[in-house]
């Protein structure tokens, strides 16, 4: 075992997969030897594998994804990096109309084993164009798988699985998770898609959380534990496929659900979780489902404002207590 940051874990996953399978190559802006990724995820890879396999591109997001789609369809296994999740907006046709639909539209003739890596999340004071969390858009796009690792351990195991998957995978990362650390086994491991991880067990309230919110929930759990309240934190790890059973089982056990999401509330990922649980575990619910999310605003720049919109451990503590009192 060794301790790695989330960035290092991602880097290790890329390196291992590139060594294992020479069809794997990386394409994106400033991922090569001069910058090694805006968040350094591709550090050392251009050096090791050459600039042919770690390709710096022009600022052409649509074509980065489109080229990755074309390469994936013809025998390669590209991992495209879009520097910020907000910039996926420039490639939505290639992602949602092409990558997601090609296997289906052509009746299964073609496949698109493609990974698109991109970071989401606020908290770095880089304002409205660099801070969004758009997971919900991609969950709402049939044909895409969606991974959302919250820890370094999950990041490595899920990225390796993503690269070996035959379908297009939106592999989202979180800017604030990049510096978090996990113990990583020396030996190789993969984490299957569609298996939620209970990040903490508890019996009073189920807390659904992803990414940075998992870490906030863990903090909240410690505080709540001191008050004698035990929350169970369910981290889905992949949103598509979604491990509904683990979520439902937990809710059936606790009878209460608090959803904590970093995206803006309306039509966010939490809406789907709430809908599923109210459809499928209605009779187990002892109180209304509650969502804690960002308000429906763009992300503001000033830290005072930004901190106000991002849910934190305090909000979770309060939310759990409210739920138990309702």
């Amino acid at each position, binding site marked *: 075992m060794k301790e790695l940051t989330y960035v290092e874990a991602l880097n290790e996953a890329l390196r291992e997969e590139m060594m294992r399978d020479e069809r794997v190559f990386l394409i994106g802006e400033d991922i090569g030897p001069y910058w090694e990724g805006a968040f350094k995820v591709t550090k050392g890879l251009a050096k090791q594998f050459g600039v042919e396999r770690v390709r710096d591109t*022009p600022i052409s997001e*649509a074509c980065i994804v*489109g*080229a990755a789609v074309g*390469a994936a369809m*013809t025998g*390669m296994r590209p991992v495209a990096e879009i520097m910020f999740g907000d910039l996926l907006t420039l490639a939505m046709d290639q992602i949602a109309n092409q990558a997601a639909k090609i296997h289906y*539209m052509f009746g299964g003739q*073609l496949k698109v084993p493609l990974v698109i890596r991109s970071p989401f999340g606020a908290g770095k004071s880089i304002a409205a164009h660099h801070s969004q969390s758009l997971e919900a858009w991609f969950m709402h796009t049939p044909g895409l798988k969606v991974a959302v690792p919250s820890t370094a351990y999950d990041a490595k195991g899920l990225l390796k699985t993503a690269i070996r998957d*035959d379908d297009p995978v939106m592999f989202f990362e979180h800017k604030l998770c990049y510096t978090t650390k996990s113990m990583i086994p020396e030996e190789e491991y993969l984490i299957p898609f569609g298996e939620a991880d209970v990040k903490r067990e508890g019996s009073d309230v189920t807390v659904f959380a992803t990414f940075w919110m998992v870490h906030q929930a863990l903090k909240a759990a410690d505080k709540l534990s001191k008050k004698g309240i035990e929350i169970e934190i369910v981290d889905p790890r992949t949103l598509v496929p979604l491990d509904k059973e683990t979520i439902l089982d937990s809710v059936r056990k606790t009878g209460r659900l608090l959803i904590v999401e970093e995206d803006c509330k309306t039509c966010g990922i939490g809406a789907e979780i709430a809908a599923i649980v109210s459809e499928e575990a209605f009779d187990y619910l002892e109180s209304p489902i509650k969502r804690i999310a960002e308000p429906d605003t763009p992300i503001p720049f000033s830290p005072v404002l930004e901190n106000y919109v991002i849910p934190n451990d305090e909000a979770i503590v309060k939310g759990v207590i409210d739920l138990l009192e309702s």
Partner: protein
Amino acid sequence: MSMQASKTTGIEKETLVTMYRKMLEIRRFEEKVWHLFGRNLIPGTLHLYIGEEAVAVGVCANLKIDDYITSTHRGHGHCIAKGADLKKTMAEILGKKTGYCKGKGGSMHVADAALGNLGATAVVGSAIPIAVGAALSCQLRGTKQVVACFFGDGASNNGTFHEALNMAAIWRLPVLFVCENNLYAMGTRISNVTAIENIADRASAYGMPGVIVDGNDVIEVYRAAKEAVDRARNGGGPTLIECKTYRHKGHSRFDPAKYRPPDEVEEWMKKDPILRFRNTLIEEGVLTEKQADEIDRQITETVEEAAQFAVKSPYPQPEEALEDVFVKLR
């Protein structure tokens, strides 16, 4: 006619006849499709390739079976030119289970992937980056495959064109950008929405060769594509080929195309690529009138069989709608 006489020089007779057959196959196929649509056997809409056959055929005649193409909403011609089976093509257009895409794609998406057709996209311009990626794949895998990317004049004003041509150029990728300039994008004259006359002139913005050819002359298309394919295969990078052509029908099956001046239509009808090629082949002694007629008869029959097959084929089962979302259902 000495000019005509030199036209087919240097091209093998077999190639010439094959190209003629393919063009005619597309024409008769499209006519059949037009007819079946009128009989309400084809759901949705239709974008016919009639009049533009020389482009797909002239280009694809230079491609090997494992070379790739990308196609468009006006894709039947590309599909057939790359060698597709008429039955499965027709069945797909009719929404049948026996179609290439099991009825999931239809006219706008019909493709035979096994023949290197990477699919017909109905989002204008969206296959240009995909073609670049396929070409990158060829380069990375070190196979000597090439990619031919078909798109319309209208597509050339989309951002994808720009990003893709630049990327292909900087990496010297083995790809042909084949612009089928049929003067219109739906009802919009390309000259009304494009700042310059020739799309091929945009090649200079990417430092790649740009060629303008008479897209209704299959020999011209063939020669230009040959040069570009050779260059691409030998690491010389991409080429932009603009084929000036014309669709005989409206944009889609519903479009009477009243926005086109009648004399313009008339003039282009005279330049019918199939008629011209037939005349050339006969004048140059490649085919006799009789042989040409016989080819037509055979093809008409094959097309008729394809139609029969398609009409008689079953529709998919409703629940098949749930299949093929992912490679393996989990």
